[in-house]
């Protein structure tokens, strides 16, 4: 008897696994139909790898911190320093690679807090659309949406000690509202679907309906928005560090590098151009990836 049960279970697992692989294959086809999404994915993966293995990849890991080598200061790109060096003689390429980790941390940090908070708020407000609670939540959301997040971040960073953590906090403070708004819209349309109605009629609990029935159907929208937002948050982070409110020197940050570099334009152009290109590349890659994910999810649900 036990043996039979074991067999049944193994069979069950096999079927589940098979269904999952088939599903993944189909998803990949839908994703890769647009070649640009694949390009985006590759760049994002490369950037993540670079951020993880920064000290192995960077040609001069010691240049990421306080380091002075006036002999090689302000060198234009050459074989020894591929992207040139800055006023202290530090390798620009190494510093860019070292700045990726913080940039990604910034994006992840903000989204890890903002998304759960926003999603839960939006889910509740959307499902109980005609109730008072929903109105209260959504008016609060409106207030947060009306505050420009960059200005808010500037204010927080100016009030508290300017550093990466505080600017992240400031961004998170206004960012969740976007997710609340997004999920609110989605949930309030899903609650009219027959499968929700039938769960209600059968008598399923609120928790089940909210998190088992409604939420999974919001995932695709949330994931797409998250990918796009990674780019935007990183851009915001760069803006903050450009005005000196993000990561503090000597730690490398793309924004700081640009703001230091542009004073020496046009002679030392590499100091501005390459960090700027790096920002562009990150934002572009996440946008392309976001488009791909949206393609993958939209046809997957049909």
């Amino acid at each position, binding site marked *: 008897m036990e043996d039979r049960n074991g067999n049944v279970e193994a069979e069950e697992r096999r079927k589940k696994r098979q269904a999952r692989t088939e599903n993944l294959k189909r998803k990949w086809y839908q994703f890769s139909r647009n070649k640009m999404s694949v390009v985006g994915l590759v760049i994002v993966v490369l950037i993540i790898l670079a951020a993880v293995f920064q000290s192995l990849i960077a040609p001069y890991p010691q240049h990421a911190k306080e380091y002075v080598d006036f002999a090689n200061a302000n060198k234009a790109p050459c074989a020894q320093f591929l992207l040139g060096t800055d006023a202290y003689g530090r390798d620009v390429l190494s510093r860019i690679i070292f700045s990726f980790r913080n940039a990604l941390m910034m994006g992840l940090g903000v989204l890890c807090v903002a998304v759960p908070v926003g999603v839960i708020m939006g889910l509740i407000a959307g499902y109980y659309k005609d109730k008072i609670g929903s109105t209260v939540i959504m008016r609060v959301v409106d207030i947060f949406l009306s505050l420009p997040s960059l200005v808010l971040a500037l204010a927080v960073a100016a009030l508290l000690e300017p550093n990466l953590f505080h600017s992240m906090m400031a961004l998170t403070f206004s960012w969740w509202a976007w997710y609340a708004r997004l999920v609110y819209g989605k949930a309030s349309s899903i609650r009219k679907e*027959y499968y929700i109605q039938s769960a*209600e*009629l059968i*008598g399923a609990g609120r928790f089940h309906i909210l998190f088992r029935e409604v939420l999974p159907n919001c995932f695709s929208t949330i994931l797409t928005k998250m990918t796009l937002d990674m780019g935007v948050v990183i851009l915001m982070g760069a803006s903050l560090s450009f005005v000196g409110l993000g990561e503090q020197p000597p730690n490398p940050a793309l924004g700081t590098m640009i703001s230091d570099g542009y004073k020496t334009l046009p002679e030392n152009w590499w100091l501005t151009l390459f960090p700027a290109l790096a920002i562009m590349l990150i934002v572009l890659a996440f946008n392309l990836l976001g488009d791909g994910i949206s393609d993958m999810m939209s046809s997957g649900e049909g």
Partner: protein
Amino acid sequence: MSDPILTVKNLKKYFPTGKEGKFVKAIDDVSFEIRENEVVGLVGESGSGKSTTAYTIMGMHAITSGAITYRGRDLSMPAKKRPAELKKEIQIVFQDPGTSLNPQRNVGQILQMPLKVHHIVEKHEWLKREEELLRLVGMEPDTVYRYPKSLGGGERQLVAIARALATNPSLMVLDEPTSSLDVSIQAKIIRTLMDLQKKLGMSYLFITHDMSLMRNIADRIAIMYLGRIMEMAPAQAFFENPQHPYTKMLVSSIPVVLEEEEKLKPDRVESRGEIPSPVDIPPGCRFHGRCPYAEEICRREEPPMREVLPDHYVACHLAGGKNETKGRI
């Protein structure tokens, strides 16, 4: 005559339009009953209020006035306030199998939910019961691992039926369960439904706009127009001896495939006009604007429901007595 399992009495459901004193009168004084082991067909055009009637019986809308009773117990409250043991007894199958199953959950999870909520079987027997339910509707038991999007429209509807059966209901409300399916698939679903009805001794309230389908499955048929029942009769009498001009118009508009069917149609009442807005219901008989036989009295007085023949009710001033020559009595 057996006792009714469900009684609907003077049911009204008005929806506010946003304008002061104006209402969408979706259901405007409807009374009928469903007897044990009976299939009652509710037919009508879109906007006639037939789906609203189904949803109100299920408790998806609060009632404006009137009463619903299930085996003598009051059911006039919305679903949220109904006791669990009554919820279990009445189940619904929706029209669109595309949206009645959650695309993110597999068939097993979908069928598991009612078992869990109503504690139908112990946890370790869930899977067994799920497979049983699937076999009951004629599907492979290993469908439990599949997701709705990998199923065809007909299969999805069978899963929806299996979900409704999970709580062992005694009354099923079927809201156009096959209207979005192809006829060759419809045939299978309908046969499954009718077999289940006999086997499990359920009653059905079957809502559809397909009169030919109704002819083949219903014991009694009620026809709705603008929120009110116009005629109600046993299926055979309803088609062979229709009394209301609206019934005649509807039946003679059906496109049929056989010469024999053509002969069964009543004298042609040519279709004209459209169903008016349920906000401004015409005074008198609500059908008089489209009725070729309308007389002075039809414009003034709302016809009451009368029993013109045994178990055959009509809401028409002219039916029965005066209309005999025009009908096929």
